[in-house]
Structure formats: structure tokens, C-alpha cells
């Protein structure tokens, strides 16, 4: 049974969090506990297509992931990733231990966020969620799962800037997004509809009989299931809103938990998408959720969105139809849908401009960076336009290349800072990298670094122009050259694409 903490327990918890926050600033304590991540030996071979494909299913392929995919074949690698529960993940798990708020129930999170207490920063709850998200993206071996977590986080977008979403998003991330990311779409949609964070974010907690609030009902059909051209009408929005009257969030005891308040429910007859809905209280909207989750429009909408994320800005219609067909046959089994998409779609992959998360995390992963995922990194994500869990509108961060390509300067500065050791609590072992790359002149270092970061060497003319321009801008000094070349490759157009 859950209840609010008493004062003594609260102080103990607060102390624990304060202590762990202190440790979080000192990542090396945890780094010593966790197994050494993969090194650069052997240096990866140029393998443009494996690199390209892995770059869709990971946040930037590390050397050992490239080697594994080359050895076992990309299909075996995909199968392994589709079963994340079979992959041990100590590198992420141990680092996540310091984030003590991730597993707390909503009423405790509410207490932590509301009260001013010794050493507990009001921002602890969302900050830990952001930091943990970045840690998982960098260190988890379950890369496809993390990529899908980001996909669904956008699909069911919630901004922590809105009311109690400030702390309820932590519960949504755990119970909705992560739990169902590779499960069944219907269960995911169902969980999201019962998620207090979602009901607050889209105002359904105030949706009451008499004059309903349409916000959630509309986005449930437009953004979460059918799509804007999925065949619903304004009347359907208004009728579904009536079905959802009384779906709300507890405010006092068990604060932040879902509840159905029949007093506020409109018990009259309703009609949604052409079907009569009998007066059955909470079950009315749940019936509609069942219809929406396997509707052909939903199948097509989700298939197209996944294809846009993984394959190409304008994916081949035949591929989308095929994937939508699998969605329908399997009643929305996400693993089957992804398998169909990846096994049939990778050959159609077109370049996509990296979103800020992918840009930052791919640099950190491929370079084996040590990071606490903290303030320095989060600040950069904000400057680039993607602070986690802060997109204000329910459509989620954009997935069009064009939305992101107009803001290069912060990426260049990040490239410079990472290569020059100017980020706090995030470091790259550059001497180790240079040593692993092997002896040679700056030209061969550029070849080696670009093979690592881009999957293949820069074209000879590009490489020559790069080295000439650097040389002309001042004497090449041996000490600064590796940092500079690394910064230049990270900042280059080629590294902005995945």
C-alpha cells in the first residue's frame, strides 16, 4: 500500500538524494565500478553500409557494435536488439543507481517537488530524468530500445513545464514509455491514456460533463493514433471528449494517481467513429481506445512515422504499406512491426540530419567519452533546440531534417569543446585515441578518425582542403593538431547526418 512519507522518512530520502547528487558530480566513482567500455582496438574498418544502418538503430555505432554486426550479420544484430531483456546492461544499470528518484511513486515525487528541504533542489526530479535519459542513450547496450524510447517520447510528448508533469513525467517515462516501448501498441496507447502526466498535460483532468474539454480527445486521435487525415471528424472529437469526462488525477491522498470520477462523467449516449457507445462509465473511452489501437488509419500512421524516423524523410509508399500490414496482422506488436521495417527497409535508407540528441550522443559514444550526462551536456542540448522533456506542443520534437539544420553554431562549439576537454564532467581520452589510431601524419590521422566517426574516410579532396586550410591559418603545432582535427570532423557536414 502506498502513502505519503512521514517526516522522518522524508528526511532520510532527502539525505540520500543529496548524497547521490554529490556523487553524480564525481562520475569517476561509478566509472570505477562499471566494466570498461569497449576500446578502439581493433580500429574499425571502413564499412559505410553497416555504419549507416547501425546509425539508424543506435545513437552512433561504437567499434564493438560495428564488429559484432559485421561478424554476425546485420539481421542477427537486429534480432538481438529486438530482445533487449536478453542483453545484460551493467554499464547503464550501475550508472543509473545514483538517480534515486526514477523508481519513486508519484505521491513521493510530489512531496519532493513541492517542499523546500535541506539540500533537495526543486529541480531534482526532472533533472535526474534528463540525466538518466542521456546516460542510457550513451551507455546502454540496448540501443534499439533507447531509440524507440525517444520515438515514443516524441509520439506521446509531455512537457515537464506544464503543471504537475514536472514530476509526473518520471512516472510516465517508467510506466508507459519504457515499459511498452517494444511491446504492444494497444497496451502502450492504453497506458498513456491512463497516465496522469498525459491527462494533466492535455487538460483531461478538468474534462467534466456539461462542457467538456476537447484537448486530449483531439490529440489522442490526431497525434497518438489515427493521424490528422485518419478519418475522424470534429463531432468525433467532441463525442470522445464526452467519453473521457471524469478521467482525472487524484489531488490529495495518493496524489498524482489516475482515477475515474463518475460524478464528473457524462453518462448520456454517445457515438464515436460511427459506433454507438453504451453508457458504461470508464469503459466507454476504453472501448474507443481498443478501436483506435488497431484501426487501419493508426496502422498506417504509425508505420509511416516509424519509416520516416528510421529510413527516409519520404519513405517508399510500398514499404509503409508493408509495415502497416504487419501492424494490422499482429494487432500492433511493435517488435514485429520494427522487424518488418528494418529487415525490408534498410536498403532504402536516405540521409537524415541528426537531431541534437543524436549528434551529441553519437559523438560521446563513438569517442568512448566518459560523461555524467549532467549540466554541461544538457545545456548544449538546449542551445541546439532539444532540451529533454521540454517540447511545449504535443507533436513532439520535429523529425524533419530541415527543422534542425539551421542551428549549426552550437554544434560547432560542442565539437570544439569536446575535442579540447572544455566540458565539465565529460571527457575524451584523446591521447589514447591517437595511440589506438596508430602512427602517421595528420593526413592518416584524418583518415583514421573519419573512418571511426563517419564510417569511411573523407574524400581525398575534402581531406586535402581541410588540411591545407588548417595549415594556412597558422603553424601546425603537433600538440594541438589531434584536437583540432577531431573538432573539425565532429563539426563537419558529414557528421551532422546519420
Amino acid at each position: 500500500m502506498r502513502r505519503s512519507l512521514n517526516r522522518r522518512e522524508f528526511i532520510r530520502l532527502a539525505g540520500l538524494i543529496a548524497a547521490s547528487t554529490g556523487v553524480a558530480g564525481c562520475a569517476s566513482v561509478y566509472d570505477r565500478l562499471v566494466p570498461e567500455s569497449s576500446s578502439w582496438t581493433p580500429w574499425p574498418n571502413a564499412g559505410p553500409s553497416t555504419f549507416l544502418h547501425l546509425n539508424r538503430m543506435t545513437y552512433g555505432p561504437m567499434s564493438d557494435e560495428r564488429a559484432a554486426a559485421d561478424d554476425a550479420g546485420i539481421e542477427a544484430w537486429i534480432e538481438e536488439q529486438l530482445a533487449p531483456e536478453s542483453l545484460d546492461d551493467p554499464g547503464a544499470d550501475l550508472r543509473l543507481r545514483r538517480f534515486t528518484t526514477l523508481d519513486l511513486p508519484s505521491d513521493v515525487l510530489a512531496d519532493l517537488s513541492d517542499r523546500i528541504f535541506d539540500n533537495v533542489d526543486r529541480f531534482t526530479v526532472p533533472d535526474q530524468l534528463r540525466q538518466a535519459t542521456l546516460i542510457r542513450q550513451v551507455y546502454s547496450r540496448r540501443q534499439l530500445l533507447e531509440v524507440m524510447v525517444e520515438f515514443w517520447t516524441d509520439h506521446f510528448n509531455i512537457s515537464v513545464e506544464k503543471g504537475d508533469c514536472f514530476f509526473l513525467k518520471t512516472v510516465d517515462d517508467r510506466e508507459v514509455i519504457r515499459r511498452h516501448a517494444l511491446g504492444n501498441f494497444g497496451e502502450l496507447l492504453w497506458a498513456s491514456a491512463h497516465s496522469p502526466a498525459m491527462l494533466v498535460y492535455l487538460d483531461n483532468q478538468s474534462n467534466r460533463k456539461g462542457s467538456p474539454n476537447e484537448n486530449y480527445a483531439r490529440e489522442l486521435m490526431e497525434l497518438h493514433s489515427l493521424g490528422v487525415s485518419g478519418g475522424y471528424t470534429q463531432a468525433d472529437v467532441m463525442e470522445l471528449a464526452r467519453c473521457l469526462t471524469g478521467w482525472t488525477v487524484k489531488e490529495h491522498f495518493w496524489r498524482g494517481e489516475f482515477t475515474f470520477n463518475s460524478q464528473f462523467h457524462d453518462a448520456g449516449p454517445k457515438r464515436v467513429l460511427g459506433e454507438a457507445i453504451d453508457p458504461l462509465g470508464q469503459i466507454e473511452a476504453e472501448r474507443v481506445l481498443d478501436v483506435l489501437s488497431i484501426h487501419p488509419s493508426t496502422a498506417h500512421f504509425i508505420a509511416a512515422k516509424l519509416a520516416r524516423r528510421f529510413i527516409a524523410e519520404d519513405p517508399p509508399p510500398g514499404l509503409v504499406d508493408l509495415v502497416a500490414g504487419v501492424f494490422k496482422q499482429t494487432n500492433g506488436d511493435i517488435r514485429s512491426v520494427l522487424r518488418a521495417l528494418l529487415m525490408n527497409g534498410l536498403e532504402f535508407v536516405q540521409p537524415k540530419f541528426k537531431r541534437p540528441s543524436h549528434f551529441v550522443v553519437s559523438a560521446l559514444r563513438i569517442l568512448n567519452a566518459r560523461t555524467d550526462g549532467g549540466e554541461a551536456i544538457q545545456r548544449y542540448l538546449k542551445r541546439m533546440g532539444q532540451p529533454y522533456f521540454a517540447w511545449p506542443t504535443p507533436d513532439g520534437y520535429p523529425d524533419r531534417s530541415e527543422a534542425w539544420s539551421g542551428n549549426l553554431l552550437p554544434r560547432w562549439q560542442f565539437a570544439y569543446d569536446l575535442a579540447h576537454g572544455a566540458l565539465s564532467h565529460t571527457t575524451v581520452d584523446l591521447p589514447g585515441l591517437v595511440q589506438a589510431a596508430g602512427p602517421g601524419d595528420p593526413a592518416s590521422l584524418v583518415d583514421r578518425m573519419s573512418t571511426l566517426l563517419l564510417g569511411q574516410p573523407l574524400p581525398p579532396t575534402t581531406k586535402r582542403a581541410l588540411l591545407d586550410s588548417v595549415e594556412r591559418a597558422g603553424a601546425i603545432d603537433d600538440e594541438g593538431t589531434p584536437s583540432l582535427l577531431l573538432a573539425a570532423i565532429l563539426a563537419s557536414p558529414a557528421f551532422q547526418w546519420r
Partner: protein
Amino acid sequence: MSQTITRRSFLQSGTLLAGASLLPRWMPRLAFSPPGYGPRGDVLISVFLRGAADVLNMVVPHGDDAYYKLRPTLGIPRPDDRRAEPSSRTLDLDGFFGLHPKLSPLVGAWQTGQLAIVHACGAPDESRSHFKAMELMERGVEDERGPASGWIGRHLATLETGNASPFRAVALGEIPQRSLSGAVPVTALRSIADFHLAGDPQALAKMQAALNSLYSGIDAVSGIGQETLRILDALQATDPLSYNSATDPAYPESDFGLGLRQIAILIKAEVGLEVAAIDLGGWDTHFAQGGSVGQMAELMWDLASGLAAFHADLRDLADRLTVVVMSEFGRRAAENGSLGTDHGHGSLMILLGGHVRGGKIHGTWPGLAEGKLVGPGDLAVTTDYRDVLGEVCLRRLGNPALGEIFPGFQVTLHDLVT
């Protein structure tokens, strides 16, 4: 030791302020505008209120009885409503419409005839979807089949001004507005003071040389990279921050106020700005939007105090500026049960500038009585938003290519600007 190479000391800039407007130390007009091209039109400032602003509570039809029946709780009291606090009453404009009290900073521009309102204005799309409506509106198209570029992008692409400045079009914020997309590369800019690379000067010189070489291609991203580098150079060679001035009234301490101030600096520094796009979000007020005070009132204050400060800051240049304010659609005429309003249809647009036929509510008022509302009970659209933008393009920006800017649409002029 790390240091900033392009940012000048703010104090130093301040001391130069008095002389700066008389004798600029640099002449970007010469650099960016070769002789042989005629003068450009106004600088356009496009303000988008994201989330569908509730225009009935912004420019209140206090003379329409139906308004108060539809809005028993959220209605803004009549100008002469003695039961209401004076500070909560509508500010009368013409006996029928009035401004929300938190839009009071705009009254001055209304009185001097530089602020006009086009009421019941909007797009034909009736999806009531933010995302579809915003996309169609920013693209300036009737439906999805239209061109993917934005209307401002097509305006810039069809108007040869001979302006090679990297500041020709600027997007305020982190993600460039869809309306700007098109032939001209657009860089997002949040703050001029922060637009620089920081680090060791020697290493940065090499880094910039490397970037110049890496971004020398002809693809779109290389174009943006080159533009970013040129902006860095321009800001390094010049000092736009010396054009930063304290104004009365002051800009609000918000992202919107910060953004408008950046635009004003670029305009005064004459770096070749033709279009700036800036957003103000948060208007999706389904819940607890408030009336004379509250959530939406605060947004209106941000909007109005920002625009008023901008207008005052640039009062000497008002004849060369046109500000257009728009939103994707309006909200339901009747309030909902959450002290908010749901998605509606008809919206409004605000025009501000020296050549605006101001002090006037333009457009045909369709009324709010039963039978006059459309769909689930929404304000009708009587003026297409493209009429307003088209007239601004034609008369103030000097661009007659309306057929390309708004394909498939016949622009009707309403004498909104001279």
C-alpha cells in the same frame, strides 16, 4: 586560457552609443548592397502566436451581446461596466471593439494610426489541428499539395534585392520557422551577444578555417554553414551591440522581449535584414486561461509590452518597418468547463508600422449570434490571411510575385497599408 574572440565589451559598446547612430564605424550597406539595385522595401517582422490565440479575448467585441452570453466567466467586462474593477475592463477602441486591458501598451500606436487589426481573419482549413493549420499557414498554401517551402522563403526567392547579407532573413530562437524555408539559407539566432565561437584564439582561427573548407559545398547545409560563418565574420568585424539602447518603455524580460531586441539591433545596425520571424508560444488555453488577469493575460502583456518597446525603440525608422502578428486559428466562441476555450476557427491579425492604415478595425465582423457561428460554434473567417500578407508583400515589400508566394490564391487588396 579560453576567451571570446568576437564579443566586445558591453561597457565599451555603451560608451559608443551616443555617437554610433551619427557616424557608424563600418558601412555594411556598401559591403552588402552593390550599386545598381533599387532600395528595398520595409523590413518585415513576422510574429507567430503558437497554439491558437483566443482572439475574442484580445480584441473584444464588447458591443456584441452574444459575446457575454458565450463567455459568462471568461468575458472581459465592457468598458463602462461599473460592477467590474476599472483595471479589468475592456479598453474601448471604436464603440464596438475594445482591447484586453493587458494589451494597453498598444493603445499609443493605435492612437497615432500605426496599429491596425483585421478581425475574423484566418485560413480556410477547418481541421482545427494546430499542426496542420500552422504548417499550411506557414507554407502559405491551400492544402498539402502546395509547395513545401514557406511563404516568406518564396517572397525572398522571387525578389532580387541585390542583398547578399547573411542577415537577409533571420529566425529568432533555436529552430527556424517553416515560413522562412526556401531558397535563402536561414540561420537561427537567439542572441547576438552569444553568437560567437569561444575558445583559444589561435585554435579557433584554425577551426574557422577548417569550417570554411568543410562547408564549401553547394548543398543546403553547406549554404547554412557558409551563412553562419559570414555572420560570425560580420559580428566580429562590426559591433551591432553598440546599437543596443535602453528604451522607454523597456522590453519585457522574456524570450520574446529578448528576440525583439535582437531584431531592433540588427535593423539599427543596417546589416541588411529584410525579414525576421519570431514566435510567442503558449496560447493553447484549454484550461484556466483566465480573464482580465491570469495565464493568457500574462501572454498578452508579453506580446503588447514587447511590441510597444520595439515600436518605441525604432520610432525614427517606423516608415521602413511592418510588423505582422498572426496565429493558426481562433478558439471556440463559448468557454468550456475548464475555464478555458477549445479549438475554433476565425482569428485576427495585427499590423504595426509607419505605413499601416491604423486606428481601424478592418474586415467584416460576422457576429457571434446563433446562426452566425460556424462548425461547433466558432467565429467565421471573413478575410483570408493571405489577403493581408499579400498586400504587405505587394505594397510594403515591393514584391508583385503574389502568384508564386501564394500559389492558387487570388489576393484581394483591402487597403490595409499605404
